[in-house]
């Protein structure tokens, strides 16, 4: 084989390799885009549909409305049974959501600090109980918890007691677990120095540990926000009067009341109900991704 043909074959090989690479890259992008459409199109369509009239919604694939109208949003403001509309329902959601998030974060941090940094009598058995709670499915607790709250007179409580009170006691085991994991990776030297300087355990927690735990705390707060605002089962069981319905229950109610026609209105109500979630997600996207990949979060 002469030098010339050698370079030629080499060049041909390089070209075919490059072609192959380009081909596989193209396939990858095609797959990503196709899946992306499957993921995002329904959401985009939903936004568009809220601005369409009802005859247009199911007659065109185009998410952009041909004759934009606020009919759906006007309909969405309607009050049901004189007691509840979407704004009131969302206000109701936040009446228990905000305390739930705060209580969950505070009680989870306290618990994680206790387990993660101290030895005490009965610690090991309590810690294994905590871990066991990670695997205790809610389905087995629904009935007896309902009966317990019923005995306490909390069912239908206007203060949402069955939803809020348990969060005072670090009821989200997963967060406690995640915070303990996070604590393990924080060196103890600073805390020891603080102790020598005369800080007690509580001061050390507030001044030293909490600031370092902040990224994990933010993740907990964000996930708790999402889960609670999406929570359907809790309000379904414990909220009894229509005036107290949160957004999740209200959205379902409006779908059942309207099924058949007026989908622009139903979809507008649905979209309004998740707007805060969308905003929070985009504002704190990286927190979510980091939070979920740090320990892995259900969701």
């Amino acid at each position: 084989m002469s030098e010339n043909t050698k370079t030629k074959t080499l060049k041909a090989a390089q070209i075919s390799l490059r072609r192959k690479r380009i081909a596989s890259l193209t396939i990858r992008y095609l797959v990503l885009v196709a899946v992306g459409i499957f993921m995002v199109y329904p959401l985009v369509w939903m936004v568009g549909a809220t601005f369409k009239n009802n005859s247009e919604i199911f007659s065109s694939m185009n998410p952009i409305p041909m004759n934009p109208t606020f009919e759906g949003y006007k309909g969405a403001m309607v009050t049901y049974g004189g007691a509840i509309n979407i704004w009131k329902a969302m206000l109701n959601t936040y009446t228990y959501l905000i305390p739930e998030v705060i209580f969950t974060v505070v009680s989870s941090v306290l618990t994680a600090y206790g387990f993660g940094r101290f030895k005490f009598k009965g610690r090991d058995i309590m810690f294994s109980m905590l871990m066991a709670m990670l695997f205790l499915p809610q389905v087995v607790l629904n009935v007896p918890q309902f009966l317990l709250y019923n005995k306490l007179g909390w069912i239908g409580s206007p203060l949402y007691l069955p939803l809020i009170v348990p969060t005072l006691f670090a009821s989200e085991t997963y967060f406690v677990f995640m915070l303990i994991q996070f604590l393990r990776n924080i060196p103890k030297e600073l805390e020891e120095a603080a102790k020598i300087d005369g800080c007690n355990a509580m001061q050390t927690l507030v001044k030293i540990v909490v600031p370092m735990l902040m990224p994990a705390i933010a993740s907990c707060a964000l996930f708790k926000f999402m889960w609670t605002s999406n929570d359907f089962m809790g309000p379904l069981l414990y909220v009894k009067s229509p005036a107290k319905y949160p957004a999740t229950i209200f959205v379902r109610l409006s779908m059942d009341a309207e099924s058949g026609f007026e989908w622009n209105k139903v979809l507008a109500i649905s979209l309004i109900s998740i707007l805060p979630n969308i905003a929070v997600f985009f504002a704190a996207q990286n927190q979510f991704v980091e939070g979920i990949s740090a320990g892995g979060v259900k969701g």
Partner: protein
Amino acid sequence: MNKTQRFLRDNIGFFFVLPWLIGFLIFKAYPFVSSLYYSFTDYDLFKGISKYTFENYVNVFANKQERTALIITFKYAFMTVPLKLVSALFIAYILNFKIKGVNFFRTAYYIPSILGGSVAIAVLWRALFKDGGLIAMILGRIGIESPKFFTDNNWALFMVCLLRVWQFGSAMVIFLAALKGVPTELYESAAIDGAGKWRQFFKITVPLITPVIFYNLITQLVAAFQEFNGPFIITKGGPRGSTTLMSLLVYNNAFGGAYKMGKASAQAWVLFVILVIFTAISFWSQKHWVYYADEDGR
């Protein structure tokens, strides 16, 4: 320093976990134990307990409706979990190549997961797949007669499953983080040895991320066996009970007007025991297929 003070100092940690302990005893342990007790009774919310019985448990398997719900729950879980995990891993694998716009795609795929638990998305699902809905219209355009997704027994369960598969994003993000941890040298040396992409995937990637596969498998299984919102909101358990999962049956018996707390407790316990068995199998089997990098000699 007297005795009490010393005791307090040595056990200060206990006071930090005390709130958790109280909550654990009142809101978790007590309900858990009491529900086991109720499950052996005919507890009715208004009539109370009149007898102790094994009937509730016998019925879960003997009663056709309950047995069907159990079978449907298995079908649902075994359809949803593999589909979700395979899609999540596949997409994460593609995203892990050096691709421009990774963050954009990651966000796009992740949004359904973060919003997907909401009732709003269940409503959207109904709008998409209902008779005369968007998908039916699109299929009609290309000349295919649309199946009746929510009124056909064979389709309804799959539609509920599809809603959850659509939310593979969170599992994907976890996989993606794990894939980033696989050293690239391994791929390079495999490529030199002539291993193609598929071989690399099955011989290098999959074995190295088995702990994460294991983690995703357990969390998804536990979630799937308890699925409630999807079928409850979208299909209301219908048509003809074809999406009545066990969790819906529990709800119907306890809260849907029957107030049969004993019966519902027994159904929940059967579901719980199934979950425990599956979790135990996964944990037991992990020594055969899960690879932990920090283990000696492996």
